[in-house]
């Protein structure tokens, strides 16, 4: 099950100032798509529209599966600056299970707990750190927790906003391996970056630069540009 996304004339203004204008491009299912551009160019704004965190002033984002439009799917998200409070009274395990099963009600969470452990281990967080409060983890360990949260439950679409900023070399290698595994499993990965090779190459690269918004830079199927 691969999911794509189509930006249909998306425009966003902040305080009357256009940040993104007429963004028209498509994230193809099962591909690795890089969004490049200078700081303040509107990359994160576009990702926030994709995630449903920001309503565009014009246009919309359509999600496509097997050629048909579907409602917004579950999206795994690793943000550039997490809003997770530093002193949150949650362990890494608590945070991932809560994100996997955030709905209200009373039910058993057996499967969810297992998925959370698998995701944390895949993201490289040692077993003895998984039950520690997130506030006691180092910056790199915390980033791995947030990565595990994004990957947990195998969401069909994964959005990574400058994922390489808070990771050390080992963490970055883990991230590249995980992205490759996600792509091999048929999932779609979109990442914002300053370096299109950051995730080991991209199938498509889009350039976002302020008012010009989206400029199609390259789209190479089956091989990194």
């Amino acid at each position, binding site marked *: 099950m691969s999911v794509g996304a189509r930006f249909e004339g998306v425009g966003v203004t902040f305080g009357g100032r256009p940040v993104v204008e007429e963004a028209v491009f498509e994230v193809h299912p099962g591909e690795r798509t890089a969004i490049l551009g200078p700081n303040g160019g509107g990359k994160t704004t576009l990702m926030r529209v994709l*995630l*449903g*965190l920001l309503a565009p002033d014009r246009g919309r984002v359509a999600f496509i599966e097997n050629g048909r439009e579907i409602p917004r799917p*579950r*999206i795994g*998200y690793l*943000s550039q600056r*997490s*809003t*997770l*409070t530093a002193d*949150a*009274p*949650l*362990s890494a395990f*608590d*945070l991932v299970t*809560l*994100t996997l*099963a*955030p*709905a*209200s*009600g*009373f039910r058993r969470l057996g499967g969810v707990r297992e998925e959370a452990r698998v995701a944390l281990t895949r993201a490289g967080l040692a077993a003895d750190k998984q039950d520690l*409060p997130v*506030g*006691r983890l180092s910056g790199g360990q915390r980033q791995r927790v947030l990565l595990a*949260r994004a990957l947990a439950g195998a969401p069909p679409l994964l959005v990574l906003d400058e994922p390489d900023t808070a990771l050390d070399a080992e963490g970055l290698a883990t991230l590249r391996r995980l992205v490759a595994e996600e792509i091999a499993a048929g999932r779609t990965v979109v990442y914002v970056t300053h370096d299109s090779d950051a995730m080991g190459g991209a199938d498509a690269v889009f350039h976002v630069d302020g008012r010009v918004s989206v400029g199609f830079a390259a789209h190479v199927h089956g091989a990194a540009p």
Partner: protein
Amino acid sequence: MIEFLGYPFFQRALLAGALTGLLCGALSFFVVLRRLAFVGSGVAHAAFGGVALATLLGLPPGLGGLAVSLAVAGATARASESSGVTEDTAVGVFTVAAMAGGVVALGFVKTNVDLFGLMFGNILTVDPADLLLLAGAAAGILAVLAFFFRPLLLASVDEEGARVAGVATGAMRLLVLTLIAVAVVAALKVVGILLVSALLVLPGATARPLASRWPGFLGVSIAVALVSVVGGLLLSVALDIASGAAIILLGTCLFVAALGIARVRDARLRVLRAPGPC
């Protein structure tokens, strides 16, 4: 004091205190987690305007307090979500407006209004009807908190992460403020407007430095609230002092003690983690 325990009015007071402790202890967890200390206090104070207005109109005071507290809670949630005004700022504006309205309304009231009782409560005069109302409100609020616990917890610690996961964070904000408003009115007779706001903050603030994960945080918060209210009531009888004040002073002592315990614990941890001599 043993003699007091045999009186029905004192038994009702103890039960009302336990229910208020349970209710405020559970809500205090979210008040402290979401940094709503001032907002909780504001919603509580807004009830004053509603009670005064209801008295002027000849309506039940509790109903007026509930209506105005809910209105302030709703307006605060709406303003902070739609116009970028922080919750602190919004509640600061709406609360003083509600209180000013209350003062104006009291100017027209010809009957005597028990302002002291309204502000500080009188737990010893709780009647069976009050107790029933409090028990119903406590059961309702605790059931709602339990049902929405997971989305509320996630939205309280990571609003953006919760939204991406599909949680309606605006609705969760409004839910917490609404529950605070209902709890304030339910606990009005027990501890009064001024003291209920303290009871919404103190238990959570006491638990925070003692517990690093939510189960301990929530459990200690409820325990502190119960000990404060029931212990304060017993102290008030033993020392012949005002019950509401005794409850809050005991809660404050527990808060200071918690800070001390956390300080000693952290110092010991630093020593244990320090590298030994070579």
